């Protein structure tokens, strides 16, 4: 009787010279079956898309200098460059508006509104957020994660694919998925962070036998 099994796949460091779909096919072709789900870490998808920048390439605006002062130190947006990076993609006025709406929402005990409205603010990883050599970069969220997931399914013949944002703090979210996937269910399966930490270099996780277990 088949059981769910999470298989992390070790890779070399993937860069913007790589295609994430081809990398998955290369490193996991012998493991992926037609009943499996392929999960890939969002930061690695973004890196292979060249979706990152460096603090040295950014010119902080007064809006970024202003807003970053009100973000707790733990967040990527607490750095003036993290905030500026999010503004580069979302637009500085949109981020500023989202921030003020989020601040008002907090008065009514509703948290997380800023990050819901300014999506890049929640997806952007500041310096140190990823492993060398990208530890000196600000990595954005991935572009078109649903399409990436669909391409993975077409290329590998797997049951489904997701682009996931998971960390060791028991936070798990699916940012993009192929048709027919239940993102909340997959996020729950990934909650213990099978991707491990960056230095383990396992940005791909295969959920074995998902279709068979689901059919039971």
């Amino acid at each position, binding site marked *: 009787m088949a059981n769910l099994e999470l298989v992390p796949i070790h890779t070399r460091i993937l860069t913007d010279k790589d295609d994430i779909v081809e990398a998955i096919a290369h490193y996991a072709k012998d493991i992926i079956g037609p009943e499996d789900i392929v999960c890939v870490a969002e930061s690695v998808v973004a890196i292979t898309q060249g979706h990152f920048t460096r603090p*040295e390439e950014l010119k902080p605006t007064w809006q970024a200098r202003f807003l970053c002062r009100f973000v707790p130190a733990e967040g990527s947006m607490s750095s*003036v460059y993290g905030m500026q990076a999010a503004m580069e993609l979302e637009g500085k006025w949109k981020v500023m508006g989202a921030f003020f709406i989020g601040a008002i929402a907090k008065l009514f005990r509703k948290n997380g509104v800023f990050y819901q409205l300014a999506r890049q603010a929640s997806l952007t990883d500041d310096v*140190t957020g990823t492993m060398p*050599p990208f530890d000196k970069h600000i990595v954005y969220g991935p572009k078109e994660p649903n399409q990436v997931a669909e391409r993975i399914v077409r290329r590998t013949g797997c049951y489904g694919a997701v682009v996931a944002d998971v960390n060791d703090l028991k936070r798990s979210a699916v940012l993009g998925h192929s048709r027919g996937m239940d993102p909340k269910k997959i996020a729950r399966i990934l909650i213990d962070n099978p991707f491990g930490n960056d230095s383990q270099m396992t940005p791909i996780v295969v959920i074995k036998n998902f279709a068979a277990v689901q059919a039971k």
Partner: protein
Amino acid sequence: MFFYTLINVVVTIVVIIAALYLAFRFYAWRQGNERIVLITKRRTPFQVEDLTFKTVTLVCDIPFVNRGKQNGTIMDVYPRHLLPQEQFDNVSIVSWTTDANRERHDGYWESVIIEPRKGGTIRLRVILEGKTGNIRKDVVGFPDMSIDIVYQVVGRSDWHISKQRIVLTAEELAQAMRQ
């Protein structure tokens, strides 16, 4: 009448903006920034880590601390040894740094966040290679050599590069070679 009303409105807006700006500057001043400094006075003496017929590897630990009120990210640290050939030409020198808490051997500094009032240790390695092939003879007459430790830091404000200097003295090298 309209003119005076307009003036009043403009002045009021300017005063409000100025007050908000000053309030923010005060808030930012109270909040502070990172301030990462190397405590060069508390560095360890250079010690010989490896000695071959041709080369000597010296190692020295330099503590650092974040004296600011905010997190600081050390993005890069690298040494710059300063020994012009006009001054001494018997050795070629390679130097590199690593985080002593997460030691690496590739000369790459992995970015690290330093919380306020916390710190760490930079491990500096200096490799001297004798040009004649006998390092003990080649370091005779070695002068005091300045080494700038250059580091790039980013926090709530703009990234910046700072440097602090240590000196590998002739006496220190001689003493390390004797041990």
